[in-house]
């Protein structure tokens, strides 16, 4: 199945095309705040360079984040409208899983980390590869480095953009030298590969309902919820 994958959760347009397990294109363009103005031009050039048109694409994959909230919305909106307009199916993939995919051959627990952009906060998830398939262990983690260090009980491969920086930060909080590092950034081809595997086995998302994986609520909502909890606690106390 020929699948187009898009991830805009970081500061780049990551766009790739695969045919089943074969990568046809894997394109990463730093965009910073030009993600929206570049995205369709980049999709178009990736397709054209491979002699393809959008009608040749049989399914879509899109990186759901976590990452830049504004960034993810561009990719998710473009992905779902591509699927809607062409009538093809789509599968959303966690960007943490996309990062972890790079460590699939290392036979170790993989910890993928993405900067949550607010000081020392990070998004993280643990993955284990069994029978050539990725399995997420536990829920997503949103918090600080010491909290994440407390969750690490065995040798891991740490995958992230700036992976060595995170290893050093984690090692400040735990006595261990069993952290291997692997640099990894979002890849459109990996999004497409993972999506293709799902789509080929008939697993697809509801196109119109597809939504980003934010993992954190907006500041305003967090504030109101905190206020509510305090009010409830005061009532009970």
């Amino acid at each position, binding site marked *: 199945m020929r699948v187009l994958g898009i991830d805009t959760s970081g500061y780049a347009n990551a766009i790739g095309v695969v045919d089943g397990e074969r990568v046809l294109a894997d394109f990463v363009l730093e965009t910073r705040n030009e993600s929206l103005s570049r995205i369709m031009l980049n999709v178009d050039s990736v397709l054209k360079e491979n002699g393809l048109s959008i009608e040749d694409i049989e399914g879509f994959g899109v990186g759901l984040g976590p990452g830049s909230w504004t960034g993810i919305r561009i990719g998710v909106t473009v992905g779902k409208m591509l699927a809607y307009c062409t009538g093809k199916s789509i599968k959303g993939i966690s960007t943490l899983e996309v990062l972890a995919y790079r460590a699939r051959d290392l036979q170790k627990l993989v910890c993928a980390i993405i900067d949550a952009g607010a000081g020392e906060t990070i998004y993280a998830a643990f993955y284990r590869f069994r029978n050539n398939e990725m399995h997420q262990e536990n829920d997503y983690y949103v918090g600080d480095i010491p909290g994440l260090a407390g969750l690490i009980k065995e040798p891991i491969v740490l995958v992230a953009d700036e992976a060595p920086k995170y290893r050093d930060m984690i090692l400040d909080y735990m006595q261990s030298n069993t952290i291997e590092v692997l640099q990894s950034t979002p890849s459109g081809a990996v999004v497409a590969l993972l999506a293709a595997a799902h789509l080929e086995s008939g697993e697809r998302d509801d196109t119109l*309902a597809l939504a980003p994986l934010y993992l954190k609520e907006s500041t305003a909502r967090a504030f109101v919820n905190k206020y509510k909890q305090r009010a409830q606690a005061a009532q009970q106390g």
Partner: protein
Amino acid sequence: MLVLGIETSCDETSAALVADGRTVLSNIIATQLELHRKYGGVVPEIAARRHTELIGYVINEALDVGGKTLRDVEAIAVTAKQGLVGSLLVGVAAAKTLSYVLRVPLIGVHHIEGHIFANMLSNPELPLPHVCLTVSGGHTLLVHVQDHCRYELLGGTVDDAAGEAFDKIAKFFDLGFPGGPAIDRLATQGNRKAFHFPRPLLKAKTNYFSFSGLKTAVINAFKHQLAGGEALPLEDIAASFQEAVVDVLVAKTIHAAKERRVSAVGVTGGVSANRRLREVFSEACSAEGINVYFPALSLCTDNAAMIAAAGHARLARGQADDMSLDVIPNVPLEVQHAG
């Protein structure tokens, strides 16, 4: 020509089908009011998230209700200028994708130009040139509409938008959100002459508005009673405050119309749904021999039909955008559309 319009500049996710710039086949508006009510205003991040969830459904419904399919769409118009950046980009990302796959022209529209077209969509007989007052929670703007897509910016607010003043007063007295409809309702049971609030810049021979001082004056007049827990004559306050805002809006618009020697004025935007505003405008304009036009209520607040109509007019003039179209959260109408 069948144009699909998309509008996501603030807190309404909207898509519409408009044929030949005149006939509204569908105009779907998913409002997020309930989502923002508890915050007393629109929260940009919450709005942007909701747009992303709703955009596909709203476009799909616009096609369904209009009895058309994607293949019938001949152009895409989208609000790309003026609004919340995170909200705007959801609409523009969707519009670009549609334009790319369907291979139809794309046009980015200025939100205020959409409001100007809302009035022409509702009232095809609205003459050109005319003076248009766009008044909403985010805007208070006087524009000399010389021709389709030819504008002269006459003036606007130097501080709060009129609708913003409604929202802030409503929030202070806990009357509900959005403030405009809440005050409009309450005011019908109040005495508009109970209190005399200032009419800022009413007599000044300029086309500029200021509502910040009026808002402060109203709040200061009742601060002590409210702090002391006294019951307030909320109906009278609402009616008197509304009267002050309406007086200024009407007087300034008529002043601008006379200055530009036009015989017609249009009033658009969310606040143009206000009943007292319509009443006073009609009386004052008729006394001056000026015709006044308002959009249908469904076209007063943010909607995609007006964006489709404006986009149609721009396309008819040979204008279109390419795939590099980006959002511009804050840009004056005149700079974009002069000449």
